[in-house]
C-alpha cells in the first residue's frame, strides 16, 4: 500500500489538534475553577435556562418534523398539484439565515419577543432539512410496496402509517435530530428575539460581565445537551433501509376534500416563512435606502467577502488533505484525525469562540483579536462540513485510475495532482464555495472574535438590530440573503436533487 505524503499528514494532524481545543478548554476551565463552576451550575438561573433550551429544542424539532414531513408527503405522494412549486417554497427558507428571519419578524412586529416567536422562526428555518431528507427518501422508496399494501386490505391512510412512515423514518429521525442540534447551537435568532437559552446566556455572561467561568460552566451544560441529542440520533436513527428503484408508474393518492385545505396550509406556511421575511427586508430596505451609507455597506461587504474567501481557502486546503488521506491511504492515524474533526460537527459556535478567546487572551496574546484567530475558529467550526462535501467527489474517483496513471509513467503520489484532483474538481469547488458562503453568513464567532474595526454584513445587521434601527439593518439582511443564502441553496446538492425529483 502507498504511504500518505507527509504534507497530508501534517495538515491532518494540525486540524485534529485544533479540533481538540474547545473541549480541552472546557475541561481545563472546570478543573481550574471547579467550585465556582459547580455553584454556577446549580443556580436557579441555570435550571431556567435548561428548561427554556429543552422546551425550545423539543418544540422546534417536533414542529419542523411535522411541517417537513407533510410538505414532503403532500408533494411527492398525493394529487396536491403544483408539486414543483411547493417543493421550491418548502426549500426556500434555507436561503434565509435564521437570524435574518428573526430580524425580519422583529422589524415587522416590533413588540414580539420570547418563546413563541423563537419557536416559530426556528421551526420555519429548519423544516427544510426535514423536507429535503424525507422527500428524498420518499422519492427513492418503492411506491409499489404501498400499492401492494392496498391490495392486502389497507386504506390509503393506513398505508401512510404502516408502510410509508416506517420506510422514511430513518431519514425523518436523522433530519429532525439535525434540527435539534441546530436549535441547540442557534444564537442569532434567539438573541434577536430575546429568549433566554444557553447560547444567549453564555454570550451575555461573557459580553456583559466578562465572567468567563460562568460562561464556561454554561457551555459545559450546552455541550452535554448536545451529546444527549447526538446519542439520541445514534440510538433512534434505525437502519437505513435498502432502497429499490421507484417504479415509474404511480397513481398519486387522492386527497379528496382535504385538498384545498392542504394547498391552503402549505401556502400559509410559505407566506409566513418566505413571504413575510422577503416583504420585510425589501420594505425596510426601501425605507432605509434614502439614508443608507453606501460606503459603510461596501466596507461590511468587503469585510465579509474577504473573510469568506480567506477562511474558504484555508478550510478547503485542510479538508482536501484529510479527505485524500482517509480515502486514498486508510490508516489508523487518519481515522483518528477524521473522528476528532467530526467530534466538533455539532459544537455550538459560541463554545468554540469562548475557547479561542481564552486561548488568545491567556496563551497567545499576539493572536488575540486577529483575523488569523477568527479564521482558525472558522476552521474548527466548518471543517467537519467541508470534509463531508469533499470526501464524496474524491471517493468517487476510481482507485484504478491512479494505478493506470502510474503504469503510464506518473511518479507515485503525483497521480493525485494529475488524476484525482482534476476529476474531483467540480465537487471540490462546489464544496469550497459552500464553505465560503457559510462563513459569509456566520454570526456568533465573528461577533466575539473579530479584530476591532472588522465589520461584516452579519455584524452590522446585529448591531443595527440591537439599536432597533431596522431600516439601517435591512440592506445588510437583504445582502446576506442574496449573496449568502441563495447561492448556498443553489449549491446544495440535496436541495438540487430534491427540486429536480419532487413534483414529477
Amino acid at each position: 500500500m502507498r504511504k500518505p505524503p507527509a504534507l497530508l499528514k501534517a495538515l491532518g494532524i494540525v486540524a485534529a489538534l485544533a479540533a481538540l481545543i474547545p473541549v480541552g478548554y472546557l475541561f481545563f476551565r472546570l478543573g481550574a475553577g471547579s467550585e465556582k463552576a459547580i455553584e454556577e451550575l446549580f443556580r436557579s438561573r441555570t435550571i431556567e435556562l435548561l428548561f427554556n433550551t429543552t422546551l425550545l429544542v423539543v418544540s422546534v424539532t417536533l414542529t419542523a418534523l411535522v411541517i417537513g414531513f407533510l410538505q414532503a408527503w403532500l408533494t411527492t405522494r398525493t394529487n396536491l398539484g403544483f408539486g414543483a412549486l411547493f417543493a421550491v417554497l418548502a426549500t426556500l427558507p434555507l436561503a434565509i439565515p435564521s437570524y435574518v428571519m428573526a430580524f425580519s419578524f422583529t422589524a415587522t412586529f416590533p413588540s414580539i419577543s420570547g418563546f413563541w416567536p423563537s419557536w416559530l422562526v426556528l421551526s420555519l428555518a429548519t423544516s427544510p432539512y426535514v423536507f429535503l431528507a424525507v422527500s428524498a427518501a420518499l422519492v427513492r422508496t418503492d411506491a409499489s410496496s404501498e400499492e401492494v399494501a392496498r391490495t392486502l386490505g389497507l386504506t390509503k391512510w393506513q398505508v401512510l402509517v404502516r408502510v410509508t412512515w416506517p420506510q422514511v423514518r430513518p431519514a425523518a429521525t436523522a433530519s429532525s435530530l439535525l434540527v435539534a442540534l441546530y436549535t441547540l447551537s442557534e444564537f442569532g435568532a434567539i438573541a434577536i428575539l430575546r429568549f433566554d437559552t444557553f447560547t444567549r446566556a453564555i454570550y451575555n455572561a461573557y459580553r456583559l460581565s466578562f465572567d468567563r467561568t460562568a460562561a464556561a460552566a454554561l457551555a459545559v451544560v450546552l455541550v452535554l445537551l448536545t451529546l444527549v441529542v447526538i446519542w439520541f440520533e445514534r440510538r433512534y436513527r434505525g437502519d437505513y433501509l435498502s432502497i429499490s428503484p421507484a417504479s415509474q408508474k404511480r397513481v398519486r393518492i387522492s386527497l379528496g376534500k382535504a385538498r384545498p385545505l392542504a394547498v391552503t396550509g402549505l401556502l400559509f406556511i410559505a407566506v409566513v416563512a418566505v413571504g413575510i421575511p422577503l416583504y420585510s427586508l425589501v420594505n425596510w430596505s426601501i425605507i432605509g435606502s434614502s439614508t443608507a451609507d453606501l460606503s459603510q455597506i461596501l466596507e461590511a461587504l468587503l469585510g465579509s467577502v474577504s473573510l469568506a474567501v480567506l477562511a474558504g481557502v484555508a478550510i478547503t486546503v485542510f479538508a482536501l488533505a484529510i479527505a485524500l488521506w482517509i480515502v486514498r491511504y486508510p490508516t489508523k492515524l487518519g481515522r483518528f484525525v477524521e473522528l476528532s474533526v467530526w467530534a466538533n460537527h455539532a459544537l455550538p459556535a459560541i463554545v468554540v469562540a469562548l475557547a479561542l478567546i481564552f486561548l488568545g487572551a491567556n496563551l497567545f496574546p499576539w493572536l488575540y483579536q486577529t483575523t488569523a484567530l477568527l479564521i482558525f475558529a472558522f476552521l474548527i467550526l466548518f471543517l467537519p462540513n467541508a470534509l463531508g462535501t469533499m470526501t464524496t467527489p474524491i471517493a468517487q474517483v476510481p482507485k484504478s485510475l491512479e494505478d493506470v496513471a502510474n503504469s503510464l509513467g506518473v511518479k507515485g503520489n503525483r497521480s493525485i495532482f494529475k488524476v484525482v484532483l482534476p476529476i474531483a474538481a467540480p465537487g471540490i469547488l462546489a464544496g469550497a464555495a459552500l464553505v465560503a458562503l457559510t462563513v459569509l453568513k456566520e454570526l456568533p464567532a465573528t461577533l466575539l472574535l473579530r479584530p476591532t474595526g472588522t465589520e461584516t454584513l452579519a455584524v452590522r445587521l446585529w448591531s443595527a438590530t440591537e439599536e432597533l434601527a431596522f431600516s439601517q439593518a435591512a440592506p445588510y439582511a437583504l445582502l446576506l440573503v442574496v449573496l449568502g443564502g441563495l447561492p448556498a441553496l443553489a449549491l446544495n446538492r440535496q436541495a438540487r436533487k430534491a427540486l429536480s425529483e419532487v413534483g414529477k
Partner: protein
Amino acid sequence: MLMQIKDLSLNYGDQVVLNNLNLDVNQGELTAVLGASGAGKSTLLRLIAGFESPTSGEIFIDSKLVSDSKDVVAPEKRGVGIVPQDSALFSHLTVSQNIGFGLPKGSDARINELLNLVGLSEYADRKPASLSGGQAQRVALARALAPRPKLILLDEPFSALDAELRARLREDVRRVLRAENATAILVTHDQEEALSLADRVAILRDGKIIQSGSPTEIYNSPVDLGIATFLGDSILVDGHVEDGKIITALGKITPLNKVSEGQVGVAAIRSENFYLQPNPSGDSEVIGRVFFGHDAVVEVQTPKLKIRARSNGPFAPEVGMKVTVWVRGAVNFYPSS
C-alpha cells in the same frame, strides 16, 4: 367465469393505451398476457387491481362490477393480490411479517403454511435486504396469496432474474399457484415464459387482445403475420396457392391453416421446420452458425433468399458446407389482403 373485462379503454390525453380490450379469465386458470414492452400490460394489471380508472369499459370480478369509468372499487376491497416486477417487499418488516401483512393477527399457521410452500421456512425472521432476487419473489408471491385473494396478478415476476433461476422459479410459481388453487394473470413479454407456464395465453397488441387460446393453439395457429413473427423465429416467404399447396422459392409446402386456390401471400416458416440435408451438389450454402449447445441456428444462403434454420447442435452443418433445404411439416399461410 371469475373475471370478465368488457371493452376496456384507457387514454392518457391523446395517447391510447388500451383500446376496447376484452378478456375473460376462468376460475383456477393461469392466464398469460403476452405483449411487447410498452404494449400496456402493466397498465392492464393496474386497472384490474383498481389503481387506475378506465376511460371506458367495465371490469367484473365474480360477476360483480368493480371498475367502470364512473366508479372504481378501492384496491383494498377487491380481493386481488399483486406480485410486482421488483417484488416490492416491505423493507422494514421480516419475511414472515411481510407474508402476514394482509392477514389478521394470530394467523401464524397460515404464515407457516406459506413459508413451507415457497420453501423459505428458515428465512422467516430475515429482513428482505438479505434475500436473493428469487427468494424475494417467492416472498412476494406468498404475501399476495396469504389472504386467499380471488385473483393474483403477476407483473413480469421473473424478468429481473437470471436465466437459470428464472426457469426454476417458474416451476415453483406454477406449483404454488396449483397448490393454492389460485386464479392468476401473468403479464410478460417473454413468449417462452407464456407458452411454458400458462393454461391460456392472450396476446396484447395495439391496446387490445388480438388472440387468446391454449399455448399450442397460439403457437401453431397465429391469427396474423405479426403474431407469427412475434412468437418464435419465422422466415417469411412469398408464395401462392396451387392445388392446395403453397408454391414458394423453397418448394411446395403444405398449408396448416385453410387456404383457397389462387391466393397470393406469405408463408411463415419456423426455423425448426427447416431440415438441412448435407449435399455436395446442393444449391444452398451454410454461411453462418451460432452454436447453443443443445441446438444451433444455422444461416443458409439459398439461390433466392437467406434463411435461418434450427438444427440439432452437435450435428449442425459447418460454415461453407453445401446443403439442400427441405421444409418439414405444415406451415401457416397469410394471404395478402
